[in-house]
């Protein structure tokens, strides 16, 4: 019977797909999971509440109608939010056609070995964050080795492992990788990973609901406890106190603790002194800023996973060279670029990269002024600056002046009358004529078009 229902659902899906198209289908309908049919009610599951509400309000009626066409007894559709213990990210593998869309949603899988309460307490693990997707370089090799050691051995060698470094350098990646690895190798071990903010929030809620005993029990029964970004434990004394007790108890029981922060233990000003010193007892590892080779390696690895076809090496080098702040921003830039290329339907090249990432690459929002344009254009065509304002009509000065007017119109928001005024008190119709003339010439005169592009790039910096 279940087989038959599952077959019905398959056919409903096919009809939904042809009615709503691939994009909508992949985004919303493919992630649904058929559960059962019960007294005329078809039960489906969606990965998030948001997705459930969306599907119900936009597709609910059609799903019901299609199903009823398959099976008259089905009168209602119900969608539940599934707990996510046994399912990969929504359609993850299927969405490679958009290149980066696979990066979209973190997998709602938590280490399945956790009991239900721990499940609610922990943060979701991102399936992209595994050891084999972590690119190792000089700046992070020690942190990587330490994390592997924790994940590979059941015995505790250093407690806690304290990872620290600037934002976006891979601390969270390593912690998730530890959790995934242990879960795969030894599903019986209980791993709890959560952010410090989540720890605080859970604790406050436990206090409110008078469930502190249960709270303590969950955390103190972990085999491996990982808390991310402890710099957010700011001056909230009762949370720090609770954390400290949990910490001590786990250490006493010889259970592994992994902590991350954006600074070293001794620099955590908001954390109590006794906790700070305790955090530094184990192995403290610093993740340094990336170097060019590592950044390039990270981009290459990411491209290989994203399954993007031809990608000019020059662009990769450009990104690795220009976006040096951290890995998160570097990967963000690559994602943006790929998405932009899909969106506008243009291949990725250096020029397009500069255009698409303009806001990121340019340090300030410097506005180009008419005076700058006049100066640069005069230099470029080797005429005197005064000729921008003069009444001379010789072609050798008139054309560059028109180019400057054209650029002033394109690159500034000044009104035509104002541009005219800045060019020796000319009328706005003169400016209009110049703009039109240059637009025409650009189509036929390749040299002029190149000059203009060059000037434009110089001015926009």
């Amino acid at each position: 019977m279940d087989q038959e229902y599952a077959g019905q659902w398959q056919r409903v899906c096919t009809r939904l797909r042809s009615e709503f198209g691939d994009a909508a289908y992949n985004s919303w309908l493919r992630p649904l999971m058929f559960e059962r049919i019960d007294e005329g009610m078809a039960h489906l599951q969606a990965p998030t509440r948001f997705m459930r509400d969306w599907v119900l309000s936009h597709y609910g009626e059609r799903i019901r109608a299609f199903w009823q066409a398959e099976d008259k007894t089905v009168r209602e559709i119900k969608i539940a939010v599934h707990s996510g213990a046994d399912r990969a990210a929504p359609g993850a593998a299927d969405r490679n056609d958009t290149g980066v869309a696979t990066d979209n949603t973190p997998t709602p899988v938590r280490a399945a070995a956790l009991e239900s309460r721990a499940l609610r307490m922990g943060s979701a693990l991102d399936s992209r964050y595994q050891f084999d997707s972590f690119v190792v370089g000089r700046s992070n090799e020690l942190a990587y080795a330490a994390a592997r050691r924790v994940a590979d051995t059941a015995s505790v060698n250093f407690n806690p492992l304290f990872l620290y470094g600037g934002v976006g350098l891979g601390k969270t990646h390593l912690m998730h990788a530890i959790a995934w690895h242990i879960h795969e190798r030894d599903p019986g071990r209980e791993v709890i990973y959560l952010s410090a903010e989540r720890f605080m929030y859970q604790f406050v809620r436990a206090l409110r609901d008078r469930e502190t005993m249960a709270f303590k029990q969950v955390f103190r029964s972990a085999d491996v406890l990982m808390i991310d970004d402890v710099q957010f434990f700011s001056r909230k004394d009762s949370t720090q106190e609770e954390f400290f007790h949990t910490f001590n108890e786990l250490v006493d029981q010889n259970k592994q603790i992994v902590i991350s922060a954006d600074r070293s233990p001794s620099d955590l000003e908001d954390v109590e002194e006794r906790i700070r010193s305790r955090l530094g007892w184990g192995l403290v590892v610093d993740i340094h800023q990336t170097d060019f080779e590592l950044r390039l390696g990270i981009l290459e690895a990411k491209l290989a996973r994203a399954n993007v076809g031809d990608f000019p090496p020059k662009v990769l080098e450009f990104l690795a060279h220009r976006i040096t702040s951290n890995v998160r921003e570097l990967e963000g830039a690559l994602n943006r670029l790929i998405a932009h290329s899909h969106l506008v339907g243009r291949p990725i090249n250096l020029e397009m990269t500069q255009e698409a990432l303009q806001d990121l690459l340019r340090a300030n929002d410097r506005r180009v002024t008419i005076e700058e344009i006049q100066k640069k254009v005069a230099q470029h065509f080797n005429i005197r600056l005064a000729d921008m304002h003069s009444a001379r009509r010789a072609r050798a000065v008139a054309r560059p002046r028109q180019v400057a007017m054209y650029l002033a119109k394109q690159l500034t928001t000044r009104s035509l009358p104002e541009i005219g005024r800045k060019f020796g008190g000319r009328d706005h119709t003169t400016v209009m004529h110049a703009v039109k003339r240059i637009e025409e010439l650009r189509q036929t005169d390749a040299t002029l078009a190149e000059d203009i592009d060059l000037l434009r790039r110089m001015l926009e910096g």
Partner: protein
Amino acid sequence: MNMTDQMILDLPARKTQGRADFLITDSNADAVAWLDRWPDWPGHALCLYGPEGSGKSHLLHWWCAQTNARRLTPAQLLDADVTELAALGAVALDNAGPAAGSKAAAEPLLHLYNLLREQGGYLLLAARQPPRQWQVSLPDLRSRLLAAPAVGIQAPDDRLLVAVMAKMFADRQVRVGPNVLSYLATRIERSFAAAETAVMKLDRTSLSGRRPITVPLARMAMAAEEKND
């Protein structure tokens, strides 16, 4: 205001904010395409930036209606329970630049960002400047914002300027001819704010003088404005 001017009540014009009321040109095509592409974004957050009056609110409004997202001001973010917000699944924040830069709002925003990501939700941030120029002092937030795609609405091209003014006049229930619009478009600064000022000025001049909006009237209104500058 001199005595012969008719008193004008400053009634806010009723704006139409549907997707169909939004004119798409080169200046805003990218922004519209990114919103249209939702939920197929490379991450769960998107920053939308553009000058005042460029239609960010309109797009935000439209996106929220599409996604049942809650639309927030920075002040509302401060008052809200971030976990409850994140449970909504989609949130849009207006004036996100100042919010991200403020001491009080930066942490709630960071947590909202993280929670939405964890729970498969979406976050749309709107501001006048791209995130790179927001004064964000919380490094965790800054790097997240810079990693998110940002899409800008550029200064309007002439076609958009004309259309924007046509819509502004229509919102005020005023009918104007294309010659008036192109007259204005070639004379005002190429910005949404300038378009708004020009339309307001012209509407007032027309109302107070009880004259229809024509090119001569526009000339008069613009001349008055230049004198005031």
